[in-house]
Each structure stands twice: as structure tokens, then as C-alpha cells.
């Protein structure tokens, strides 16, 4: 039961990317196709789990003054190894991912979880927390990736789902979806949809507009 709370909660109710604006940096640049988004999500989840576990292991012995750099070094080591693994076993994907796997080091989500959770909790809860958050992040990436690949190329994971006009079908791909701005638009719409579903996540406005119809008492 505890495990379920750790894993399911971060996916929807407290999705770290959507709710706390964490880790979006590299999220968007790799969402031009589902395969890159999925690889990125898996890479980040693995790094998150491993680094949370290690940091949690040594949590009682980290001196305050070097806390941040020690966490970063641990995360960086796992990132380098993951980067190698992706290059070794998924070479074509790694060329499209370019520097973004390496940028997991500075990913706000990974550092955020290390600071907020792994540093203060035992190993197994930290691992579960890492898994849950990683899955939540991967979910957002894959959703955005699916939308972009479907509308931008008519395919999903490389399989042509919508027949292209050029091949005798009807679908005219939208190249604008593959550009940077549309990733932002899609994220904005996604946030809107999520908050319509879960109104508790809506941020309140800082200033309320004065309704001109209201009587001024």
C-alpha cells in the first residue's frame, strides 16, 4: 500500500513536471518523436532511482558545505554511465538525443528529489519515490511526444499510423509541430487539460479583476 502511494501519487496528482514545473528543461527538446521521448524518460527514471538510492545510503554522512556538489557528482556518474549505455545499444537514438541525456545532471527534478526526499529518507522509500516521479515525468514526455510525432509526421514509434499524402493517403504532416514553439503550446494546453480535470491544482490569480457590473459600495 505504501508502495502504491509512492508510485501512483507522483504520476497524476503530484506530477512533478506539471505541478511543480520541475525538470521541463530537457523534456521538450526531445519530444519530437515517441522513441526519443521514451528513451529520455527511461534514462531519467533509472538515474533518479540509482542516485536516490545512493544518496539515501550516505545521507547521514554528507557534510553541509559540500552537500550540493556531492549530490551532483553522484548523479553525474550515473548519467555518464547511462549515456554510454544509450550510445552503445541504441546508437541512432543517441545521435538524436545529442547532449540532452547528459543534461539530466542539471535536471531540476533529479536534484529536487535528492534534496527534498532522498536526503531524509531510507533507501527503499527513496527508490520508490524515484520510480514514481520518473514514471510521472516519462508519462508527460511520451504524451507530448505522441502528439508531436502524430501531427508532425503521422507516425507513432516509427509506424505510419496516418497515411501520408505523398504515399497516396490523405494526411498532410504539419511541419510547424516539429518546431520549438509548438512544444510550449502543447505543454500549456496539457496543463490546462490537467487542471480542468483536477481543479485543486489551479493556481489562484494574484490580482482579481474588478467586475465593472459590481456595485461599488
Amino acid at each position, binding site marked *: 500500500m505504501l508502495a502504491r502511494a509512492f508510485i501512483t501519487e507522483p504520476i497524476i496528482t503530484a506530477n512533478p513536471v506539471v505541478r511543480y514545473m520541475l525538470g521541463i528543461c530537457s523534456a521538450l527538446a526531445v519530444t519530437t518523436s515517441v522513441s526519443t521521448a521514451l528513451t529520455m524518460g527511461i534514462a531519467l527514471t533509472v538515474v533518479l532511482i540509482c542516485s536516490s538510492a545512493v544518496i539515501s545510503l550516505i545521507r547521514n554522512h554528507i557534510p553541509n558545505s559540500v552537500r550540493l556538489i556531492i549530490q551532483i557528482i553522484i548523479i553525474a556518474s550515473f548519467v555518464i554511465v547511462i549515456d554510454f549505455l544509450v550510445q552503445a545499444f541504441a546508437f541512432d537514438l543517441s545521435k538524436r538525443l545529442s547532449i540532452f541525456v547528459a543534461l539530466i545532471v542539471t535536471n531540476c527534478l533529479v536534484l529536487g528529489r535528492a534534496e527534498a526526499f532522498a536526503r531524509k529518507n531510507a533507501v527503499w522509500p527513496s527508490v520508490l519515490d524515484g520510480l514514481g516521479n520518473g514514471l510521472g515525468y516519462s508519462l508527460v514526455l511520451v504524451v507530448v511526444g505522441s502528439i508531436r510525432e502524430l501531427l508532425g509526421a503521422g507516425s507513432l514509434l516509427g509506424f505510419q499510423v496516418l497515411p501520408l499524402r505523398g504515399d497516396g493517403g490523405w494526411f498532410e504532416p504539419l511541419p510547424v509541430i516539429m518546431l520549438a514553439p509548438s512544444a510550449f*503550446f502543447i505543454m500549456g494546453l496539457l496543463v490546462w487539460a490537467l487542471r480542468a480535470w483536477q481543479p485543486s491544482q489551479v493556481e489562484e490569480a494574484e490580482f482579481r479583476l474588478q467586475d465593472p457590473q459590481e456595485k461599488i459600495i
Partner: protein
Amino acid sequence: MIDLFLLSAFEENLALSFFLGICTFLAVSRSFDTAVGLGIAMVVVQAITVPVNHVIFHHLLTEGSWSWIGLPDADISFLKLLCFISVIAAIVQILEMVLDRFFTPLHLRMGIYLPLITVNCAILGASLFMAERHYTLAESTVYAVGSGSGWALAIISFAAIRERLQYSDVPRGLQGLGIAFVVTGLLSLGFSSFAVIGGVP
């Protein structure tokens, strides 16, 4: 060199084309003054870290750099990630201490942004791009100043827009994060129109 500067500041803007440093971007850009402070801090840190990382990368990590000690085939460039991030953290720490000691009023105003910058994707991203694209030392410096300025420009524009946005009638679901994304998208669209000005053939 000019077109490298323009390219890195506008067409390949770290924030708006590569989505780097967005976290800080979205979290800090509610106020114009903080955005200006963060932007300046970014340019300064970039201008120092990218050239330093270049020197370390080419003279300590790449193949052939240890030939003077009799190990010409040693290629430890896989350590560049660990190296860059440590160098960045160290430089930011030193900068903070120097500011605190010699320019205290400046430190009081701007010093709080420096720790935020250590883990900023854009700083690490710029160093990684520099290594991937094999820039020379001169090109690295121009790239650093250009990309830092571009990022600063993006975040300052964004803060200005967001300040105004607080007084508009935004739909409830889009409030805050949602509209921030949409505005960033529009800004990104605008910046991509600079492609022609950048002089890229």
C-alpha cells in the same frame, strides 16, 4: 565571429530553441528586476565557465593531451560531464566569495542568483555544445557571451510580459504555469524569425 554571436543569441537561443534553463526561467521571471539580475549573472558566469571548460577539455581530457607524460592514446573525454559540472560549481562558488568580499552591495543584490545558476541547464548545456562542436578558444568565448546574452534577453522579455499578464483575464485552468508556457511559445516563435538576420546561409 559576429554571425556566431548572432546565431547563438537569436537563432539558437538556449532558452527558446533548446529549452535550456527553463526551470529557473519560469520560476524567477515573475518580476522584471529579478530577471535582470539573473540575466546579468548568467552572462558573467557563461563568459567565465565556457572558455575555462574549453581549456580544461582540450588540454586535459581529449586524446593526445597526455602525450607529454608518455600516454598519447589516453582519451578521458568521457569524464567531461563530471569535470564541467565541478568546474562550474567551483567557479560560481568562487565568484560568490569574491563578490561578497570585494563588491558587497553587488553581492547583496545579485548574490542570491548565483547558486541557482550552478544547476542551470543552460550553463552546462553551453559547455557541452562547445565540446560537441569543437569550437576554438576564441569561438568559445564569443559563443559564451552570445548565448548568455540571448538567454538574458529571453528571460527579461518574458518577465516584462508576465508582469503585465498579472492584470489580464486569463482562463482559470491556464493561470500561472499554463499561460507561461503559451507565452514562451509565442516568444520562441518570434525569436525563430531572427533566423534570417543571423546570417545563416
